[in-house]
């Protein structure tokens, strides 16, 4: 079941990318209010992705800025729904846990999406920066070795992609878009923090990921047990097959524009 309700599409929406139109219709059907400016921003995002070539790599992308759980749970690419668990606040800039406990289950795993250790990309838009106390913004198999997790505990602890671990020593933890992926052409793995002024901090690891990705579901906001939940908002999250480092830069620019235009806010 998803929100692909073609019979709810507006007849005056011609000229809009069909995937953008379907997402907008799904958000409205779920209770979101989408202004003309927001529709244009969403349409531009889809069109840019298709022109630049990264749209086909996207597998799940969430823009939880609609202040309604059903709308926030909708994936922009598949129109499938995630499931929020626990005490989650749905605010204009994104979603966050109101207490220590809560998460969103994407209801899928990476293997089902065609995402493997040799072709992956994660992106996380943090409008207020990281919550450095004890938080796990996204994870597969929680914090366990050979899982996938990004973890703050009294400051940044690590980004783990199964057997490869980034130190994140370059991070500012300011409001940003954080990404990580593999670049098979460059032959490395990267971990980036893109700030609103365009500055990109980056850490690279030569080589590849050696250990296959776990088959557990992908969780956002907290771990599978609704623990280590984010008290700072997540404005957008996506998971994709491989983006080259150059595609990553183009994608994060488009994601920043999408979030800023649809929220009317700026990454400070």
């Amino acid at each position, binding site marked *: *079941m998803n929100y692909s309700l073609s019979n709810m599409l507006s007849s005056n929406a011609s000229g809009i990318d069909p995937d953008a139109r379907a997402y907008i219709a799904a958000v409205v059907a779920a209770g979101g209010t989408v202004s003309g400016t927001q529709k244009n921003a969403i349409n531009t995002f889809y069109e840019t992705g298709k022109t630049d070539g990264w749209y086909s790599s996207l597998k799940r992308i969430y823009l939880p800025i609609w202040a309604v759980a059903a709308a926030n*749970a909708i994936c922009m690419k598949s129109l499938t*729904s995630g499931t929020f668990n626990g*005490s989650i606040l*749905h605010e204009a800039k994104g979603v966050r846990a109101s*207490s220590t406990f809560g998460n969103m289950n994407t209801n899928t795993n990476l293997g089902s999406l065609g995402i493997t250790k040799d072709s992956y990309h994660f992106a996380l838009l943090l409008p207020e920066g990281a919550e450095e106390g004890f938080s796990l913004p996204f994870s597969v198999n929680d914090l366990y070795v050979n899982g996938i997790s990004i973890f703050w505990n009294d400051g940044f602890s*690590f980004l783990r992609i199964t057997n490869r671990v980034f130190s994140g020593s370059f991070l500012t933890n300011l409001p940003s878009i954080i990404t990580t992926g593999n670049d098979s052409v460059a032959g490395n793995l990267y971990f980036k923090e893109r700030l609103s002024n365009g500055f990109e901090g980056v850490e690279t690891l030569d080589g590849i990921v050696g250990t296959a990705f776990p088959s557990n579901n992908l969780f956002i906001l907290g771990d599978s047990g609704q*623990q280590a939940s984010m008290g700072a908002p997540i404005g957008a999250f996506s998971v994709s097959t491989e983006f080259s480092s150059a595609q990553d830069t183009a994608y994060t620019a488009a994601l920043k524009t999408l979030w800023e235009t649809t929220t009317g806010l700026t990454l400070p």
Partner: protein
Amino acid sequence: MIGFVTTQEQADAANAAIAKAQTDRGYPVFWLAGSNLILSGEHAGQHFVPCDDAILSTPLIGNPPQTPQDFPEFTTIIESMGGLDARIDIPAADITSPQEP
């Protein structure tokens, strides 16, 4: 942490009923109250179903958004756990896993 202390079976039943209220209306399951095993303290070994003000006022769906309290099934679920007055406040530390990375 405000909510209900109950058995795993009742916590699972409560969340299954919340899920059913959504699927019965043709929706995907986009929201659950969730539950946690209580690891320490007076209620260790039981399960905790959160039910604080944020849960009760969650904007679920629609415009204007309906909250859990707008669904009659939710009232039934609350009553099955003893009603809102049966909620208690337990320390978050009782639920927090000591799991280390």
